[in-house]
């Protein structure tokens, strides 16, 4: 049997997806046996040039994590798309934009000002800022161009499969690897997770009553381990989020943060969650309702924590 040619890449990501691959533990050795890794910058010494010289379609499967926020990432996304038969958006950033996608509340200038000038721990008296092109005595130095807007992988190139999660859980990674190795691939466009919402997987009790008079932050209470988080006034993304993660956060008594992206029927995860949260409020008085929802800070960041670039509105207007 020909060994499967496997590529892995990270774009705008934190590195957690790479750790998730290594979390397969000794199964990583099975992958190394079944597959020949032809590109994996975080772990093996390959150069972009090595990929550029490959024939188109010569990588069987590429697991691509991270969002696209600069010209280097876009270039490699296009390059790996051309070289790969199957491109997998691996992790929430590649699937939906992820945490880096929250930068879509700002533009490049605002991001740079915050990071290089006004951040509380920043000391930059000379006001040095990254530039795409710098003239130096040694010649011209080039940095990738930083974009105003973060994109998911499929907003840049076509993608065959989506493996969500921050990071994807190891059992789903293994399920994907087994499917790839055995050739038993689901139809293109599939999300390798559940077709139901997280609430469908959750074992907590729900009273189905409108019961919330007050929204709280997690640090303010010790949640009851048997009751629905939402009914305890804690924001949980369960109703608007795709299941398949095994509800690990819920089991650890932490509400869902929505990393598996919108539930299968939901176009806009934030809008869905907003509707679900509003329906829980126990009040018929507009003033009281307004007071109750005022307890939810940073609605955009809370409702769209992992999905802003793929949401209905995609980014904030400045």
């Amino acid at each position, binding site marked *: 049997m020909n060994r499967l040619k496997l590529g892995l890449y990270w774009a705008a990501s934190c590195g957690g997806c790479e750790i998730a691959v290594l979390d397969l533990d000794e199964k990583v050795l099975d992958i190394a046996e079944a597959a020949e890794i032809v590109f994996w910058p975080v772990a093996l010494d390959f150069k972009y040039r090595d990929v550029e010289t490959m024939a188109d379609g010569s990588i069987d499967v590429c697991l691509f994590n991270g969002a*696209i926020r600069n010209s280097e990432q*876009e270039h490699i996304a296009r390059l790996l798309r051309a070289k790969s038969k199957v491109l997998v958006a691996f992790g929430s950033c590649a699937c939906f934009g992820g945490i880096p996608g929250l930068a879509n*509340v700002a*533009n490049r200038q605002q991001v740079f000002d915050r990071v290089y000038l006004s951040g509380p721990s920043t000391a930059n008296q000379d006001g040095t800022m990254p530039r795409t092109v710098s003239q130096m005595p040694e010649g011209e130095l080039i940095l990738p*161009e930083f*974009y*105003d*807007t973060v*994109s998911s992988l499929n*907003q*840049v190139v076509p993608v065959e499969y989506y493996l969500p999660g921050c990071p994807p859980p190891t059992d789903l990674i293994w399920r994907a690897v087994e499917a790839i190795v055995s050739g038993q691939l689901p139809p293109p466009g599939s999300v390798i997770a559940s077709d139901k919402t997280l609430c469908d997987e959750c074992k907590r009790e729900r009273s189905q009553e409108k019961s919330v008079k007050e929204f709280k932050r997690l640090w303010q209470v010790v949640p009851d381990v048997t009751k629905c988080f939402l009914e305890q006034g804690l924001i949980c993304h369960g109703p608007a989020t795709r299941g398949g993660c095994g509800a690990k956060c819920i089991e650890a008594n932490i509400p869902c943060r929505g990393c598996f992206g919108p539930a299968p029927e*939901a*176009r*806009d995860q*934030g*809008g*869905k969650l*907003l*509707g679900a*949260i*509003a*329906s829980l*409020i126990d*009040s*018929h008085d*507009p003033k009281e*309702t*307004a007071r109750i*929802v*005022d307890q*939810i800070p*940073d*609605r*955009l960041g809370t*409702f769209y924590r992992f999905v802003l670039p793929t*949401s*209905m*509105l*995609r*980014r*904030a*207007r*400045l």
Partner: protein
Amino acid sequence: MSERFEPQLIGFFCRWCSYQGADLAGTSRIKYPPNLVPIRVMCSGRVDPTFILKAFREGADGVLVAGCHPGDCHYGEGNYNMMKRYPLLAGLLSEFGIEPERLRLEWISASESEKVAAVVRELTETVRRLGPLNWRSTVVSLVEGRLA
């Protein structure tokens, strides 16, 4: 040449009361600006927040949601669901850079044809003052400008 900006408004009208109020405004020949496109829904509670976000994305400069007065919902509590979404949505829209005045929620009964006309007039003028939203061109240019 400077033409007056004509806002494009989308209105979601509950079929039991507000839409009938709008019908009555028509049969009574009450005049009001032609800027609003009415969409009949079964209940203001049926107006998923996603519909409103989509209206703005697709080019609406303002959105009106009109339902039965509190206590009068044909289904009991549908309009209360919309009432509770409204402050959350208004806050969310302003975080997206959309002035919350572009979204208006009104309770209009089947007999309140004058109110339909007044609300449409007011919303048209409010949005005219705010100017065009142009979600697609403003936002897409920020996206596409960097992604050739």
